[in-house]
């Protein structure tokens, strides 16, 4: 089922510490895919992605705001696919501070202290949300 607003059940998925994936696209049409440490729930219509390095995703969304985000929920056997559009960046304030704190915790837990450092919270408007329910594999094949 596809919706245009983030449901409540997606909030814990964004807080589970499992990396997410993002695809963006340059103005000349080259897709770029990357793994990110955090997607932050702002409100029902917005998420924030961490801007830690001045990378291709950051450059792409400033020339073509469209992006696709894949969230992973290992507890619910599901993924969520969000189509989003870059809106603006925040380098201070409550969203930035909260993300900065969570990034430091993730960095510490994954041995990446000193490498993960939040430069900005990039705020995106959510265009669509789709839940993908995964089948539990039988144990003899896992």
């Amino acid at each position, binding site marked *: 089922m596809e919706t245009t607003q983030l449901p409540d059940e997606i909030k814990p998925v964004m807080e589970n510490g499992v990396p997410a994936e993002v*695809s963006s*696209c340059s103005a000349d049409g080259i897709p770029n895919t990357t793994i990110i440490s955090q997607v932050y729930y702002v409100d029902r219509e917005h998420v924030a992605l961490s801007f*830690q390095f001045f990378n*291709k995703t950051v450059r792409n969304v400033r020339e073509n705001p469209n992006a696709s985000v894949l969230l992973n929920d290992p*507890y619910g056997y599901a*993924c969520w696919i969000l189509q989003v559009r870059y809106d603006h960046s925040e380098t201070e304030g409550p969203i930035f501070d909260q993300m900065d704190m969570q990034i430091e915790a993730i960095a510490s837990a994954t041995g990446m202290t000193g490498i993960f450092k939040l430069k900005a919270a990039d705020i995106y408007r959510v265009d669509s949300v*789709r839940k993908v329910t995964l089948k539990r594999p039988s144990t003899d094949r896992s």
Partner: protein
Amino acid sequence: MIPEVIVLFLDRAIVAIAGTRDERLVPHVHRVSGWRCSPDRKTITCLIPEEFTAHLVSSLEDNGQFSLTVCEVPSHETYQFKGEYVSSRPSNEGDVADFEICRRRFAERVASLFGFPKEACAAFVPEPSIAVTFEVREVFVQTPGPAAGRRLVPREE
């Protein structure tokens, strides 16, 4: 041509995610359940589950642009491959071995590192429904750190 050291990396990596974009320049993300490099090291075939094929073939047939990011954990060593669509076909018996190897490697590694049940981890590598082959034009370092974004193939001057 993909350097041999990168081919060896593909044999130990555990996560792969693909990207396409449609005619409106809207990108789409696709989970990948298996991958293999061709013997001539020019193409990679990605096995993609049905659940993640929305916009996949239509985008590839529209413009042919494909990106693939592959990661190894716990090192976080990551590379991104970009290139042009060559072909796609329904996945077949010949793909099963690649899929099973990738799923087992992912489930065992993630379960041991993060403490999730192995069964839950394996669910994130669903059986593939389609095999997409693309010709690799560029390879980039994407390991978090100062070298991220550096192009390996063709080598930056």
